[in-house]
Each structure stands twice: as structure tokens, then as C-alpha cells.
């Protein structure tokens, strides 16, 4: 049989419709499409794709089961290593992970591994999931701080092997960045809720509205629990620290997305939380969060949305699919520009941003070419709303109240990457709080590592 060189396309909402709603853009494979795509997999013996997966899913294994139409077994196979498959199938940057290493890439496009993962995960969610039997109960309790991808992974992995887990979440709804950060049109909240329900079905208890560091400290948790895992993410927004940044109309991406996603400001006044949308919006940054913010602003009625990025498209850290979708939807990309100051009117409202043109120099520490300012190239770009999406750092509340927990100057918790151990006895950490802003799947990978060493610590005593 001849090799099909391209991925089976995934049905999507038409552009002209989707820019007016918050429904999911990619609609997911039908069974027929999934079977066609699964048949492209060569079932390589050495499975290079698995090496690209931070949680080591048996990729050829689950694809083979799809080919055989054994969908229940396919999802079971994925769940051996991944507790949140409906999420990762949608938000993983597969092009730099599993799919980057696919053998088919030598002749064409890789197997659409992410889309297949999503297909079986959705299949199970629609049908109702099976709760795996819990093998053995230990008389040990673990506290997990934060209910994002890292925390849910640790909780799920430990619960499945019979350890009691309580999750503490600061917000009123669990899910962390999956709930407050990633928009509905990319990851519907009903999917996140279903994945959280699955973790709860394993016996995990989730306490919302508890801010560890304020409501309760790490030391207090250690009195009641045998170990603590900190998976609080990188939730503190960074600002540009340029003049005019407190003008009305300037949001951190975190605030903008939290208002819209968690608080449902896109349904104001049915929901009480408001949001202000400008006519011409400038989004500063080039990552997934910048794409999410730009596409959200567009859906909320902005006339023009501009990405303002200081390097070029090649250096943009955003997922390929997000860039493609953003372009299709009419987001305007402005490269090699860097903000110098914000300009306001007499009432304190934003009316423009002064930008400086850049050129690319030698690669920097990140391996990307460093932007260098061009003297005398400044100009004012009129915008009435700005969203600052230049990255986040860990929230300081836990490190402030846990003096013997070692952190670096950004507040990132220092861990042993092999075990997730922190400087504090019985305290583990993983995900963005220990790595700096990264991906959902990397946080889950770190969670798996920590879960293993927590289990070892508790059962070897």
C-alpha cells in the first residue's frame, strides 16, 4: 500500500463563523477519519515518537488499537501514562514532540498523533469512562497544592496506586491554567471538568478556595500529610516596566484571560464580571498565551488585533497550529518591534504605544537570535487596548511563607529533576513553578516523576 504523505485533515469551524463565537475551532476526527489516519502509522519497532513524549505514552500501541477499532483498549493504553488525554490531545505542541520524531516525516507529514489521542479520549468521554480498580490502600496521605496539569497528574498517579490525596486550589474552580488560561475555543471547559471528575473518581478530594501561603502554610500541611507536592504553576504576570503601563486599557494576559475564561466575562451581563474591549488591540508577545489573547480579543468584537513581537515569526514560541489559526482569523502580525512606552489621554486611557524597530543579532541563551534595537526608529502606533503576554513567573506566596524552601531569583522552586525533591524534607515540586513557563505536557511529565518518588518515599519507610 502506498504511503499517504499528508495528515488526514481535521474538520474545523469555518473562519467567518468561529470568529464570532467561543466554540471549539477544531471539531475532532470522525471514526472514519481516525481509521484512515491510524492506518498511516508504520508501527516502527523502535518507536521514535515515544521518545518525544514527556509522559512516554505507548503511541504505536494505542494507534494499533485504533486500527483494530478497539477504542476502549486504546484509551486505556493512553491512560496508563496520561491522566488528561482529552486535554493533551488538544493543547500539546505535537510538532515539536512526538510528531517531530515520526518516521513518516522523512517522506511527508507525520502521523497526526495528537488528533488520534483526542479522538479516543473524546470517544471515552462521550461514552462514560471506566474507573480503574485501585490495587492496594496505603495508610499515607499526600497534599497537592494547585489543581493544574502537574497537580492533577500527581494526584491521579498516586490515587491509582492507593495513596490518599487532597488537592488544594486557590480559585473557586479546579483546573488551574486549563480553566483560567486556555480559552474555550481551544480547550472547552466541559472537557477540563470531565478530566477533573475523572481524577476525583479515583478518590482524590479537591478543596477549592484555599490559598496555600495564606489560608494555610506548607508547614501546616506537613503536620497533617506525609508529603506535599507544590504544583502552583507560574501564575504571576510579568509587566514590561515601561512608562504608562498602568493606563486604563492595559491588561496582563493573565487578567484578560482569567476574566474571560474563568469568570466568563464574554457572557457579561449574564455573568457579572465585565471586560473592556478596545477597537484596536495590541498584544505584546509571541507565545501561545499571546495567540490566545489575540484570538479572544477578536471574538469579543475588536476591529483589529495586532501581535507585536520583537523577533520574527521563526523565533515565535507559539504552537504552529495557533499561529495558523490566528492568521486565518485575521490577526495582524507585526515583527521586530519592541514597546518603549504607552501613551495615554488626559483621563488616563490608553491611546497608543511607542514602538522601536529591531533587527536580529547573534543567538542568545535561548538559542534564538537576539533582537537589537535600531536607534532613531521609534514610532507611535495607535491602540486603545493592550494585552501584555510576555511571560509569567511563579507566585511568591508559598516561597514568602516557607523560608526553608530554596528558590532562584525569579521565585522558581529549585528541585532535583530526577525526583522532584525540593530543599525541604517531604516537599516536592514540579511543573511551571519549578521549570518556569512551559507546556501542559511538560508539567504533567514533571508530575509523573514526582509521583514516583513520593510513592517511593512513602512506601519504603
Amino acid at each position, binding site marked *: 500500500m502506498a504511503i499517504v504523505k499528508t495528515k488526514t485533515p481535521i474538520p474545523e469551524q469555518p473562519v467567518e463563523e468561529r470568529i464570532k463565537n467561543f466554540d471549539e475551532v477544531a471539531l475532532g476526527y470522525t471514526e472514519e477519519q481516525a481509521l484512515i489516519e491510524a492506518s498511516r502509522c508504520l508501527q516502527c519497532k523502535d518507536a521514535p515518537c515515544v521518545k518525544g513524549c514527556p509522559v512516554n505514552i505507548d503511541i504505536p500501541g494505542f494507534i494499533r488499537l485504533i486500527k483494530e477499532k478497539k477504542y476502549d483498549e486504546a484509551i486505556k493504553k493512553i491512560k496508563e501514562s496520561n491522566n488528561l488525554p482529552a486535554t493533551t490531545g488538544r493543547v500539546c505542541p505535537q510538532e515539536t514532540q512526538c510528531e517531530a520524531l515520526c518516521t513518516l516525516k522523512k517522506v511527508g507529514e507525520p502521523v497526526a498523533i495528537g488528533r488520534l489521542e483526542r479522538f479516543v479520549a473524546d470517544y471515552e468521554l462521550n461514552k462514560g469512562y471506566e474507573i480503574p480498580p485501585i490495587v492496594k490502600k496505603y495508610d499515607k496521605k499526600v497534599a497537592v497544592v494547585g489543581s493544574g496539569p502537574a497537580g492533577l497528574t500527581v494526584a491521579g498517579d498516586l490515587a491509582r496506586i492507593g495513596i490518599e490525596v487532597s488537592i488544594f486550589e486557590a480559585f473557586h474552580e479546579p483546573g488551574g491554567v486549563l480553566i483560567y488560561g486556555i480559552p474555550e475555543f481551544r480547550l472547552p471547559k466541559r472537557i477540563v471538568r470531565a478530566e477533573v471528575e475523572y481524577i476525583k473518581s479515583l478518590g482524590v478530594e479537591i478543596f477549592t478556595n484555599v490559598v496555600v501561603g495564606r489560608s494555610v502554610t506548607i508547614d501546616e500541611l506537613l503536620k497533617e500529610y506525609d508529603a506535599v507536592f507544590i504544583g502552583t504553576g507560574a501564575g504571576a504576570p510579568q*509587566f514590561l516596566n515601561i512608562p504608562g503601563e498602568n493606563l486604563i486599557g492595559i491588561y496582563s494576559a493573565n487578567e484578560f484571560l482569567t476574566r474571560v475564561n474563568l469568570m466568563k466575562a464574554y457572557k457579561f451581563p449574564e455573568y457579572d464580571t465585565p471586560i473592556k474591549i478596545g477597537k484596536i488591540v495590541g498584544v505584546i508577545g509571541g507565545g501561545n498565551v499571546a495567540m490566545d489573547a489575540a484570538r479572544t480579543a477578536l471574538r469579543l468584537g475588536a476591529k483589529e488585533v495586532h501581535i507585536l513581537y520583537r523577533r520574527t515569526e521563526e523565533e515565535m514560541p507559539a504552537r504552529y497550529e495557533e499561529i495558523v489559526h490566528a492568521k486565518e482569523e485575521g490577526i495582524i502580525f507585526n515583527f521586530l518591534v519592541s514597546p518603549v512606552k504607552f501613551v495615554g489621554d488626559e483621563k488616563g486611557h490608553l491611546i497608543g504605544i511607542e514602538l522601536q524597530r529591531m533587527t536580529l543579532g547573534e543567538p542568545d541563551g535561548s538559542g534564538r537570535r537576539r533582537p537589537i534595537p535600531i536607534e532613531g526608529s521609534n514610532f507611535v502606533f495607535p491602540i486603545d487596548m493592550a494585552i501584555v503576554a510576555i511571560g509569567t513567573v511563579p507566585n511568591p506566596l508559598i516561597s514568602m511563607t516557607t523560608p526553608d524552601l530554596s528558590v532562584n531569583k525569579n521565585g522558581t522552586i529549585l528541585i532535583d529533576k530526577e525526583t522532584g525533591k525540593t530543599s525541604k524534607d517531604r516537599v516536592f515540586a514540579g511543573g511551571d513553578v519549578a521549570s518556569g513557563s512551559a507546556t501542559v505536557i511538560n508539567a504533567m511529565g514533571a508530575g509523573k516523576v514526582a509521583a514516583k518518588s513520593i510513592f517511593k518515599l512513602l512506601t519504603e519507610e
Partner: protein
Amino acid sequence: MKTPLIAKKALPGQFVILRVHEKGERIPLTIADKNLEKESITIVFQEVGKTTKLLGRLGVGDKISDIVGPLGNPSEIEKFGVVIGVGGGVGIAALYPILKGLKEKGNYVISIIGGRSSDYVIFREEIKNISDEIYITTDDGSLGRKGLVTDVLKEILEERKIDRIWAVGPTIMMKVVSDLTKNYGVPTIVSLNPIMVDGTGMCGGCRVTVGDKIKFTCIDGPEFDGHLVDFDELLARLKTYKEEEALALRLFEESEVGKVGHSKN
């Protein structure tokens, strides 16, 4: 409000964030008092918008959907000597635990509290019980002296040496107090009330300029050196959602009127 975890931890100057119902917004409110036996805290608020009006409709035994806290840094309560607490409107309730703490530390406490009219000067008995001197002002003269809290404050500052001042109330009051006390060189602490979403340092919506630096009120505050705060910027930012707030309130009140009309039929 019964909330054991918060009651156990709450210290003067801290606040909570609450959500009244499932579609509600998150709003910050300062903790006015707590009762360890009843595992409860006291919150005082003024009904100005939809959320506070909804909260005002609730009675004993009712529940709200969420409350989280205590948030923010506690007040720095030490023995300073002679201190003045200036309170306006619902800020008087927020000022109360701070002054109570200061009194317990052995400070000589002078309270100056005021409001539009006598109805707005709340917590009078509580404040009186922990004050060495108390002065009351109202805009209309319906209680105490006719005038502003700053009128009394200015007279005291002219006559006596004061070691520290707390001002808690409407932003404009805190600004006027800070402007005044700057001339006398008396350290002045204000408790800011910007727009917030999460209250844990993750949105930056509550950012204020304090001495040319950006500070987050929720985790760096809520109390700051009043002489360093950019009040004009804060006053402007507080108006960000003026139109949306008015719309939400109008729709709410219309639906209330509708309900009343309906029940009469």
C-alpha cells in the same frame, strides 16, 4: 459569616474575596472583626453595585457560593506612641481591627470617623470602646461636627506630635489625608481598594504605583505608605468599568422591580 479556616487565620488589615452566586464576580472586602468561638468573621459593605446589593439581600442562614482568605498582608501593629485612625464610610469597619490591635499594644489611640450623614458613621460604639479620644464628623452636621475628617485631623496635627496615622476609607479621603499629613511629616498608612480579580497575585489588575514602582495591592499590600501612592492613577483606574457596573446594576434593579410586580399579581 461562618468560615472556620478564615476566622482562625485572619489578622487586622487582611481581606477576603467572595462570590455571591455561580455567575457572580469576585469582589474583595476587608475583614472587620472575627469570632473564634463562632468560627465567624464580620464583613461590612455598602450596597453600591449589583454584587453588594445581592449580598445585602441575604439573611441569617443563607449561603454564598465562594469565599477565600485571609488575603493580603496584616497591618504592622506595634507600639508607636500616639496614633490616629481616620475612617470614612465602610472604611470605619475596616479600621476597627487595626485600632483595636494598636490599642492592645499600648498605643494612645485617637479616632476620627466621618461620613455623609449620621447613618454612614458606622461602628461608633466599637470604635469608642478602643479609643482614648474619638471625634465624629458628618457632611450635613447630623452627627458630631459638620465638616470633614481632615478638618479635625488638621487641628490635632497643629497642636500635637503624632507618631503614626492610619487612613481607611474612600480613595479620595485617603488621598486628602495623605496630602495633609505629608506637610507634617507624620508616617501615614492607607489601605487601598482597587479593582481585583483573584487576590492572590496572578492578574495584576490591582496594580498601583507606589514610589515609582508597580505594586500589586493583593500581595504587596493592601496597606501602603500613603505619601508614596499615586492616588490620581488609582482613582482613574477605579473608574475602568463604570459603564459596565451601571449596566449590571440597572438590569439587576429592573429584574427586581419585575419580581416585585410579579409577586403582587
